[in-house]
């Protein structure tokens, strides 16, 4: 680990001011950042510790939703009675991620900002445009079993590893960020993560010196909520494919659907046309297949991840079948 100076922030604005310095990084749970620092994939010159700032509350909003503080632990968020009752999808997604020890440390804001688990991003001896812009992408012609099939570029085929973010994408969450001047900005989660394009090193639309203070959830959506994760082990593994679904159906007819996918792209993936195409349709294999085709529009495998295309189709089938079962 490279040497750094450590500072415990006593206010959000102080933390934001410190963060504006070159080489500074925020640390809260640290479970991903320290992992990367040990490998020198990350080497901040300054760490600003925000873990003791009062950002650890889950509050009900006047609109009937929830405002989740940025340092709320993944385990606390998953266990919150309001989340379990009204946003079961989010609880399930959080509980599908990492281990209990890590969830006791990992925070809401940090989870959104975690980096890809692409093997070549982690291996500093290999080219990686995300770690070292312009050096190339070893995953394109390498082992790319866990890599993206949608929204990738010839610069980067990494995926976003979060389960939580996929659920939040289906729930239309908003990310609240504050800068050193104290100005608050709300970023819809759809716009928060970026596709790699030619700048895979820029992963979010957060601006320099901005700190995530909260994630807001709109009122709970009507319908059945499901989070289905397909992975190599039964527990404690990243998603190959995951589906977050909120589906309303009655008498065998789909009334509304929201579908977000993990493990497929550089950000939680959502296709409005696929969801719209389900409305008013009978819940049957043909309908589900049409939705899968819409989701997979433009999908492309890179060799070892070709299987993700049929796997996504089948997982969506299974989820929609359960969601519309009456």
């Amino acid at each position: 680990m490279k040497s750094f100076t450590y500072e415990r922030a006593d206010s959000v604005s102080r933390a934001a001011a410190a963060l504006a310095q070159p080489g500074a990084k925020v640390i809260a749970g640290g479970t991903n950042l320290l992992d990367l620092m040990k490998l020198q994939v990350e080497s901040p010159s300054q760490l600003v510790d925000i873990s003791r700032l009062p950002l650890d509350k889950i509050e009900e909003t006047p609109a009937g939703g929830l405002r989740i503080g940025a340092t709320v632990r993944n385990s606390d968020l998953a266990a919150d009675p309001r989340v379990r009752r009204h946003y079961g999808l989010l609880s399930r997604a959080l509980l599908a991620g990492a281990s209990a020890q890590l969830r006791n440390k990992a925070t809401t804001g940090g989870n959104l900002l975690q980096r890809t688990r692409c093997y070549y991003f982690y291996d500093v001896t290999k080219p990686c445009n995300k770690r070292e812009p312009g050096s190339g992408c070893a995953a394109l012609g390498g082992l790319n079993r866990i890599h993206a099939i949608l929204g990738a570029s010839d610069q980067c085929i990494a995926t976003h590893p979060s389960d939580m973010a996929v659920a939040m994408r289906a729930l239309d969450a908003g990310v609240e960020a504050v800068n050193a001047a104290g100005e608050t900005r709300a970023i819809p989660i759809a716009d928060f993560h970026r596709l790699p394009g030619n700048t895979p090193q820029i992963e979010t639309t957060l601006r320099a010196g901005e700190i995530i203070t909260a994630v807001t959830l709109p009122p709970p959506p009507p319908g059945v909520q499901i989070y289905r994760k397909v992975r190599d082990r039964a527990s404690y593994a990243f998603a190959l494919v995951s589906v977050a679904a909120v589906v309303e159906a009655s008498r065998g007819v789909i009334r509304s659907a929201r579908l977000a996918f993990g493990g497929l792209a550089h950000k939680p993936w959502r296709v409005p046309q696929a969801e719209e195409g389900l409305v008013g349709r009978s819940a049957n294999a043909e309908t589900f297949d049409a939705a899968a085709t819409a989701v997979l529009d433009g999908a492309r495998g890179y060799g070892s991840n070709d299987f993700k295309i049929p796997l996504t189709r089948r997982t969506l089938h299974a989820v929609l079948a359960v969601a519309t079962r009456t």
Partner: protein
Amino acid sequence: MVTTYPPVRIVSPPEFDEGTAQTSGSVRLAAIAPQLGIESTLWGGLFEVKPGARTGIHHHGEQQTIAYVLSGICEVRWGTRGEYTASAKAGDFIHVPAFLPHMEINPSDSEPFRWVVVRSTSTPIVVNLPDDAWSVGASVHDNSDTRFQLTRRAVLETGTAAVALLSGGFSHAALGAALPDAEAARAAAPVELQVNGQPYALKLDPRTTLLDALREHLALTGSKKGCDHGQCGACTVLIDGRRINSCLTLAVMHDGQAITTIEGLADNGTLHPLQAAFITHDGFQCGYCTSGQICSATGMLNESRAGMPSYVTENLADAQPELTDAEIRERMSGNICRCAAYPNIVAAIKQTAGLPT
């Protein structure tokens, strides 16, 4: 038969030229090590030897070691019955040559002295010896020799104290450090760790993980370093009753928080129920993951009592999910056991939770 032993060399600073001799210990070591063909391995065992106590280095074959006397005066003895002696004082290097199976470094004064292994071609076995070591008279070549009192724990404990000093004041105080003093002073941060109810005031490089602080600075070696990347769970400790991976957090971030390690679970010599249950159900084979498993299970039972759900909980609205085998396995998935003692670990946890096993 007369056995000829290679001599132990006491290398004092005057052997070097004026300029080198005046510089820090690490520079002098850099000068001496290549001359002796010992360049690669640095091993930081530090030993404080009180008058009357004895320490020794046990070697094999071509192994060579350089020790350094940090303070005080000592007598170096080698040979079949310790018949060869030399004296070394603070600032001297002791070169233990190849094919010398055993030697001792003992106090020759009424004052304790401290020495450290600074280089070795492989990790030497350093032992604490009983007072009558030489009088036993057995051959030093005999591996069944009992006089070395070689216990793994003694070696480990001495080694741990050493590392603590190496990462603290030792490097720049005695041997000269890679870091210039001013930089080291700027980097060190004061931290008070509350471990098992005991306060410890430390000055730590901010890079020090909680695990390294526990193991290397506080000599609490029950928490294990397995993967050092949060994947195996061997380092699990409890902070305010909640389990975390101590390898993936910085010690400075836990200033003042209540940390419980495996050493703090037993109550006045009475094993924690989980510790007892792991013994009853044979919840381990090699034991390396066990302290992490037990700390993790302690936290897991706290979570279960608080009604926290898991990925396999069927009904999230259930305020008190039942602790089935599947629940225990899912909730403990952050602890890997290479010996695959999982069925017995599950049984031990069930017994502790008051469930039929």
